[in-house]
């Protein structure tokens, strides 16, 4: 199984995010062809219409495009991928900060901990 879904959240959103990740990380490169709806449905173990919906959303954001009668491809616009990477990164950092603040850390402490742990990497 590709990913473990949280069934409380629409599945198509989770599929969409997972495909975005494959594009951001370069697993799927600019101009590369995506698998067919059927294959993606099997890969994720979900309804083909769920895949269809995730792909429509990705297409609306410009991240993928359809070549008629051929298939769907990752955008050629690498700026768009960079923007997406930035947006997702900011989201993740915000999530991280709010967790750290819940734990009672202030800004200084958070930065100190990051530096400490990054230094150890």
């Amino acid at each position, binding site marked *: 199984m590709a990913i473990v879904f949280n069934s409380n959240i629409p599945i198509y959103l989770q599929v969409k995010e997972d495909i975005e990740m494959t594009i951001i990380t370069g697993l799927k490169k600019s101009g590369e062809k995506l698998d067919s709806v059927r294959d993606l449905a099997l890969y994720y173990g*979900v309804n083909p219409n769920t895949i269809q919906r995730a792909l429509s959303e990705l297409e609306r954001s410009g991240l993928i495009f359809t070549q008629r009668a051929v298939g769907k491809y990752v955008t050629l616009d690498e700026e768009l991928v960079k923007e997406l990477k930035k947006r997702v990164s900011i989201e993740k950092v915000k999530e991280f900060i709010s967790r750290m603040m819940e734990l009672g850390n202030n800004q200084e402490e958070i930065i100190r901990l990051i530096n400490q742990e990054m230094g150890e990497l």
Partner: protein
Amino acid sequence: MSDNLIQIDNLSKSYGRSKVALSNVNLTLSSGKIIGLLGPNGSGKTTLIKVLNGLLKDYIGKLSIDGNPVGAYTKSIISYLPDESYFADWMKVNDAIGIFKDLYTDFDQVEALKILQRLNISPELKIKKMSKGMKERFQLALVMSRKAKIYILDEPIGGVDPAAREVILDIILNHYSEDSLVLISTHLISDIEKIFEEVIFLKNGAVEFHRNAEELREETGKSMDELFREVFRC
């Protein structure tokens, strides 16, 4: 012919004088969808399925399947997995395949053999020698090897083995035709809910609701499994 493959109007069915199994059921089920028929034991799932397959009569209401009343035609377009085993123990896998070939013109033997090979089920194997789970997967393989307009699967995941569940989901997703309707009854929802486009909740023989699964998740922030527990809390 319309997209509404199954149209059920005011369907009621009782056993004997007092036991109401289905009570005024109205449903419109269209092609190209995988639909979950969800309800606890005794909610009427199997009764509804048997009515659709022409195995139970004496019901009140109107039933239309691909524009036809239940009969020889509708039986020919429905591939049905009953909730019990229906092959004799003495048979071999090959014998069962022969029966399917004789009974159903839309049966694709090559496809069936391919699935069975993937499942490591030999054509020479005796049905008697199969475990419960293996028998389940075997029957599903045959049922999904028909090129049917409608697949009705009554509790396809009875067994407990999680790896086997994935295999079962895979067989269903891999082999149904895109314009067909797949109706799956189950009470084990969490294992299978991600393949449903729509869900029907059946409670005491009546339809509690029939909705798009993703819309329900969006509205309630809950999984079908959680909603099920809420609706059917004792």
